Structure formats: structure tokens, C-alpha cells
């Protein structure tokens, strides 16, 4: 279902979505982040890219699994803490970040469904905004089976036509929230569609960075586990982990207990994001560490995204958002690393 929404009518539509909790990009101390919006006027879709992707709304950086309390001498009380029933809409999701959510779906689905993830995922509507132009000089979505106007993972895709949005509903969830704005939307004219398609095509042309022959990289990586290549590439790494924290597809996490009182114990079990770039991520309690150095950890990051994930789930675990490149304090550039992998030994 394709519709047109004037920019003037946009806040009125958002007002009608009040039963939902609404997140939208918001400027905070010079960076764009998703914020819980209470006034529709507060939404500004004239943004580039958010510092963190929409991942953090579905898979928060920290969440409670359960609470425990030893109320009497013997049996502790365990209370499961599930995410609230809270239908949510996220506005301004970039296509790469929406595609990333579909990759997370694969990880958190499968034989053991992660019910914390799915509770949020199922009640979240992702409203995308096509990129025109690409928001970052390091965007490379076209190389990893994406595009600046990809619909994958989105419930609605909006394209900015200047004074109005071309609005495409892509799922039942998307249809539902479009219907809440009945009367505000008009039918697109042929020139609207034409204009939208031109914007999409122009945006593709403006994606500046590319990985050549990515298909050659997964099989190449298979033979590079023992290569000294990783030592050279990881030399400058500060093991800060920002590449993975900013990544819309990285899903690794930790589970720990936090206590308010130790005896008798009272506290909660929490999940937090974790990163393969930290030394203690894989360290056994004996002190033995299967990934003891920066080289083995950079190798893990690259192999996971471009070989293991491809084997296990048939997708690259990267959507080309470019955040890891832009944010790395020492300039480790995943495109350059992959270029070198492809050409290694040639």
C-alpha cells in the first residue's frame, strides 16, 4: 500500500499513534540517538545516522532476566522479569539497520527462542527512512546485499520527496499504523512514484565505498585462520570494543548477577551487551584463553561476520552502515581489511 503524507500532516499522524510508545531520532549533545518521544512536534527526520542503531530498542544494552530473593532460610524466590507489553514504533530507521534486525532474528530464533528478544521484536513497528543521500561517507550497503532504500525488515518505508513523504506499507504491522492516520494520507500520483524512484537511484549512485568481489572473501577466510595477517591488522587495535558496540548486527552478550544484599542474597540477573574484542570474553576460569590476543579477536570479528555467519545463516553479518569504520579510534577499516583478505597471497 503506497501513500503520500505531507510533512505538515506528519505530526498529526504521530499524534494518532499515541497508544504506541514512540522512538525517533533526536539530537543530543551533537549526536543523533533514538529517544522516547512524547510530543509529535519533537520528531525531526532531517537527520543523518543515529549513533546506535535501532538494535538497542529491541535488544537493550542492559535488561533484567529475573529477580531473586532468599525470603526464608531455604527456598529462594525467583521472579521472571519479561519486557512490558508495550507496542512500540521506531521512526527514522535506516534500511541497513532494519536489515540488521532481520539478522538478529536469526540469532535469537532457531531451536531456542530468546523470549526477551521476541517479546520486544513482535511488538515493535519499524518505520524506515530511505537514505538520500547516504548518511555517512563510510556507507557501503550495496556491497553487502543491501541498498539505501532496502525494505528488508521494515514495516513501512518512507522516502523524503521534499515537502512530503512517499510512504510504502510493507507488512500488516505497517498497515495498521497507516490506518490509524486515515484521512491524512493521499494517493500517490505517477510523478510521486517517479520522483521516489529517482531519489532511490540517485542515492545508490552516491554510495561511495564498496567491497569488490565480496563473494570471494568467505572461502578465502577459511584458509586464513593461522595467517600472520591478523597480527599485522590488529597491531593498532586498542581493544576498546566500540566497533562491536556500535554495530547493528553484533549480538554477543553477558549474563551476570547483581546484588543489593549478599546474605541472604537479593538481587537480579541481568543481560548486558558484551564484545569479542575484550580479553576476558573467552577466558576460562583457569586462566586459559582460547583467544588470548588482539589478532585472534580481530580474526574472530571478521570471521564471524564474513565466514561463520555465512555458513550458519546464509547471510553476511554486516549491513554496511559504516559505524565501525567511522568510530574506530585508530582507523581500523573493515573494508580495507576485507580488501586485503581478498587479495592476500595473490
Amino acid at each position, binding site marked *: 500500500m503506497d501513500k503520500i503524507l505531507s510533512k505538515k500532516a506528519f505530526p498529526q499522524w504521530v499524534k494518532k499513534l499515541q497508544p504506541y510508545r514512540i522512538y525517533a531520532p533526536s539530537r543530543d549533545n551533537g549526536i543523533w540517538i533514538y529517544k522516547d518521544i512524547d510530543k509529535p512536534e519533537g520528531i525531526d527526520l532531517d537527520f543523518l545516522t543515529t549513533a546506535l542503531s535501532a538494535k538497542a530498542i529491541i535488544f537493550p544494552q542492559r535488561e533484567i532476566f529475573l529477580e531473586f530473593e532468599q525470603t526464608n532460610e531455604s527456598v529462594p524466590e525467583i521472579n521472571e522479569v519479561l519486557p512490558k507489553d508495550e507496542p512500540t514504533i521506531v521512526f527514522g530507521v535506516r534500511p541497513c539497520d532494519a536489515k540488521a534486525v532481520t539478522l538478529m532474528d536469526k540469532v535469537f530464533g532457531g531451536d531456542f*527462542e*530468546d523470549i526477551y528478544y521476541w517479546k520486544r521484536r513482535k511488538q515493535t513497528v519499524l518505520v524506515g527512512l530511505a537514505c538520500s543521500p547516504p548518511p555517512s561517507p563510510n556507507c557501503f550497503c550495496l556491497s553487502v546485499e543491501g541498498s539505501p532504500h532496502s525494505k528488508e525488515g521494515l514495516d513501512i518505508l518512507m522516502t523524503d520527496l521534499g515537502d512530503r513523504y512517499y510512504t510504502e506499507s510493507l507488512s500488516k504491522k505497517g498497515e495498521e499504523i497507516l490506518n490509524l492516520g486515515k484521512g491524512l494520507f493521499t494517493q500517490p500520483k505517477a510523478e510521486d512514484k517517479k520522483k521516489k524512484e529517482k531519489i532511490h537511484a540517485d542515492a545508490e549512485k552516491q554510495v561511495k565505498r564498496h567491497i569488490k568481489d565480496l563473494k570471494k572473501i568467505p572461502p578465502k577466510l577459511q584458509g586464513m585462520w593461522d595467517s600472520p595477517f591478523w597480527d599485522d591488522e590488529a597491531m593498532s587495535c586498542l581493544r576498546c570494543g566500540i566497533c562491536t558496540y556500535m554495530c547493528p548486527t553484533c549480538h554477543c552478550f553477558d549474563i551476570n548477577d547483581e546484588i543489593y544484599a549478599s546474605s541472604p*542474597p537479593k538481587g537480579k540477573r541481568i543481560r548486558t551487551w558484551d564484545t569479542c574484542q575484550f580479553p576476558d570474553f573467552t577466558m576460562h576460569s583457569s586462566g586459559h584463553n582460547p583467544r588470548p590476543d588482539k589478532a585472534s579477536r580481530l580474526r574472530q570479528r571478521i570471521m564471524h561476520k564474513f565466514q*561463520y555467519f555465512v555458513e550458519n545463516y546464509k547471510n553476511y553479518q554486516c549491513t554496511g552502515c559504516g559505524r565501525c569504520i567511522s568510530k574506530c579510534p585508530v582507523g581500523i577499516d573493515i573494508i580495507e581489511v576485507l580488501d586485503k583478505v581478498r587479495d592476500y597471497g595473490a
Partner: protein
Amino acid sequence: MEHNTYIPKLAKIIHIKEEVSGARPVKTFHTQFLQENGFSYRCGQCAMLSVFGKGESMISISSSPLVKDYLQFSILKMGRVTSALHEKQVGDIIGIRGPYGNSFPIEKWRGKNLVFIGGGIGLAPIWSVLKTTLDKKKEYGNLSLFYGARTSNDIVYKEELEEIKEQMTVHLSIDVEEPDWKEYVGFVPLNILDKKPSPKNAITITCGPPIMIKFVIQNLQALGFKDEQIFTTVENKMKCGIGKCGRCNIGLHYVCKDGPVYSWADLKNLPQEY
């Protein structure tokens, strides 16, 4: 309500045995679920044990699935959670979730000779499969065990080893000489070369420190065992138990989900990341 795998079931510790004392203490725990809905498991699987306020630790289930009234865990005191477990008393409550991982393909081993090889606490992960096949002894060929520890004090399941000696051959060893020790002195891989188990119609199941496993496999190969005849269990640091948290992988395998049991034919193709 959908099943939430992260919520442990409560279980009572009904029995504790101090296996090894001193600097590397080992205790064996028997637990019983408070509710009827415990779980059924297969030989080689693991469970995530919780000490509330300390966290969770993945431990192999060392009782046979044929034992219905308790689960057995033998635990070396090592980190935060295992140290907290060592403080527990009979009657205390812990959390258990699982079971996780794959298992030993014992149905395929019917009629074969089974050679078990353990080192130190590494006897625990293969104890379940050893006891199960011993209980169904008629279905298998000749059963034998090679087991070694640093010192005689570090030997776990001392009484049980005496008991099973009546039903199967047990080759014990310690690493360095002790006055009253009458059995083999030397590392487990050397004891294997010394006793020369036959590869004919045989399967070996080994677990122990990584360095021991490495040389055990080398020596088994020297004796003519093929990669498909050699099984081992692997461990890595784990948090979720279901292949999502990202830390226990060996290449594209998650040990918690795709392991911990591997044949050497499979494991040798994975990177040395354990």
C-alpha cells in the same frame, strides 16, 4: 506461556562428597528438583548451575540418565561460581537450567569395545557415558578405563573406581611417584602406549586437560585408532548455553549447542580455539 530457557529450575542439594581436598578441591553434588518437571538428558550433556547472587557456570552432568532420582555434578573449585558451590551444604537450593549440547552416540556403539580415557576432573564428563554403558554391559563389547591424576589425592570417584574394577579393566596412573602407589606412574598418554589398547572394533572416549587430550589422540593414532574411533568432549567459557551469547565458538561451531561431544574426525577440521 512460551518456555523461557534462561529461568533456572530450583533444585535441592541432597548429597555432597568431598572427592579431592587441598589446593585443587573437587566436590561431587547430587541434586533433586523441587518440582516434578525436572529434565531428561543424554550422556555427555551439560547443565547451567546457578548460585543466586554469584552467577552461573556450565557443568557436565556426570550421572547416568538411567539414574532417575538425582543429577550428579563433580565440580573443581576454580572461579566465582564454583567456589560458591563449594560453600554449599546439603539442603541448600541452587538453580539448574538445561540440559544443553549434544551427546555421545552410544546407540551406534553397540557391540563395540569401549576404551574410556580420563585425566583429573576430566573423568566427570565421561562418567555418565561410562556408567550408562556399564549398566548395559551386555550390549557392548569389552569395557576398559584409563584414568590418571597428578597425585593419588587428585583421583576422583575413588570408591566407585574400586567398585567398577569388578566389571571392567581399570588402569590407574599418577604423574609422579608416591611411596604406596602400586599402579602406573607417568602421564595418561604414556600409560596408553604402555598398555596398548587394541583399535579393533573399538571406540575411545577421552576427556582431560587440553594438553593430555592432544597427546592421548597422538598416541591412539600411533596404535592404529582412526579419527572416527576417537571421541572427546570440549569446554569453553559459556554464558547462554544456546548458541547466542557468542563466546564459546570454535570456528563456526558453538560448543554449547553443537558440542561438547566431538569425534576427532570432526574436531580436527575445526580451528584450535579451545
